[in-house]
């Protein structure tokens, strides 16, 4: 037989051992191959989805910059007044419950006296409207003026309990800034208040939270010094009308104030 490429065709002929492969076996192996491919594809999909989900989870749990993490700020970003208290800090015994303990006071003496007068209905109306806007989720009570109209109280109730807001008004002489400086530590606060001056020259000061005695009561105030000589004091307390016994004695109230420093600042700007 010559070496002819066409002779290669004869290799298909001739004796051959009987085949041992059955179609049943091929189908069985083929189905298993399909199953393996599907399982492999599913595993890859699961791994990819898992990696994506894990990455997202990691990103969500990763530490964020403070500005992002604190999505609901509680403090106003106004600058503090550049003044120092006249006296040394004295530690108060506020008990063992935070935040009543570790509070200090810096007693003041010789500060100018202001004469408080009756709070006008217009001021009370404007203040209550402002409260509804600043605290949309808080149940707001009605003004109660038990002390001859000099102070008006308003209960503020939320999930933490009952607190209150009181309003007083007085007059001062001199410029708003000078009056604000003179009363910068009138709450016996050791840290200077934060100050904001509006376009018309009204000075708004938010004071640090202080502890009133003898019954420990948390108090935070904002003072508004208008150019016309009117002083408005907004006082937030951790107690409400339900905590007042025998008309004047105030019992310990809720553990926190009913509004944050930022909310008090917003309220003061509304009222100013």
């Amino acid at each position, binding site marked *: *037989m*010559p*070496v002819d*490429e*066409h*002779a*290669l*065709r*004869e*290799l*298909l*002929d*001739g*004796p*051959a*051992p009987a*085949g*041992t*492969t059955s*179609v049943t*076996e*091929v*189908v069985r*192996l*083929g*189905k298993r*191959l*399909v199953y393996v*491919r599907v399982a492999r594809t599913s595993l890859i999909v699961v791994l990819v989805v898992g990696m994506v989900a894990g990455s997202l989870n990691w990103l969500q749990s990763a530490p964020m910059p403070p500005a992002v993490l604190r999505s609901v700020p509680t403090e106003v970003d106004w600058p503090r007044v550049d003044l120092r208290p006249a006296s040394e800090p004295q530690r108060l015994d506020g008990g063992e419950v935070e935040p009543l303990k570790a509070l200090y006071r810096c007693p003041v003496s010789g500060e100018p006296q202001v004469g408080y007068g009756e709070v006008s209905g217009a001021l009370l109306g404007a203040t209550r409207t402002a409260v509804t806007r600043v605290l949309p989720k808080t149940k707001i009570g009605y003004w109660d003026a038990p002390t001859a109209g000099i102070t008006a109280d308003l209960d503020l109730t939320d999930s933490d309990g009952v607190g209150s807001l009181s309003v007083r008004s007085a007059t001062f002489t001199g410029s708003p800034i000078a009056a604000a400086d003179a009363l910068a530590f009138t709450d016996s606060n050791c840290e200077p208040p934060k100050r904001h001056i509006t376009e018309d020259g009204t000075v708004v000061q938010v004071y640090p939270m202080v502890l009133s005695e003898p019954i420990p009561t948390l108090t935070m105030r904002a003072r508004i010094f208008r150019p016309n000589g009117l002083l408005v004091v907004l006082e937030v307390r951790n107690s409400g009308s339900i905590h007042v016994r025998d008309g004047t004695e105030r019992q310990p109230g809720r553990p926190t104030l009913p509004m944050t420093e930022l909310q008090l600042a917003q309220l003061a700007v509304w009222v100013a």
Partner: protein
Amino acid sequence: MLRVRDEEFAEFFSARFDTYRRIAHALCGNWSLAEELAQESFVKVYARWSKVRTETADAYLRTVLTRTFLDTKRRGRAREHSVAEVPDTPVGGEHAVPEREVLRAALLGVPPGQRAVLVLRFVADLSVEEAAAALGCSTGTVKSQTARGLAALRAAYPESTRSA
């Protein structure tokens, strides 16, 4: 639906398995390995049966068989009986056809890539284009590989038999 698919494939298998087992034998020179190559190729065809369908199943089967064979060679799984010297007496017993076995032995002396081209072109009787499609290469490559493969085949053929 699945039963119809299996019946179609069974028909396809019955009509072709022996032919492709012989083609595989021409490629590797070993009946056991040829059986394995053919079986593996048909299994892969079954796994894609819904896509290859009967019209393209032959072309797909040729591609799978050839590539599976070449893969075994690349992975060093050459389980064929390599023949360093073409035997003077053809193997296969007293009923074997001597010339055919000499030719088969000479074919196994051709490099695997060129051997695959020769088998597809002359054993499976494919055109240059069909062989190129099965190998995933150009027709020019098939032509050049054919020429080199034939030269290698002739070189491997015993002198005495060649002049006979």
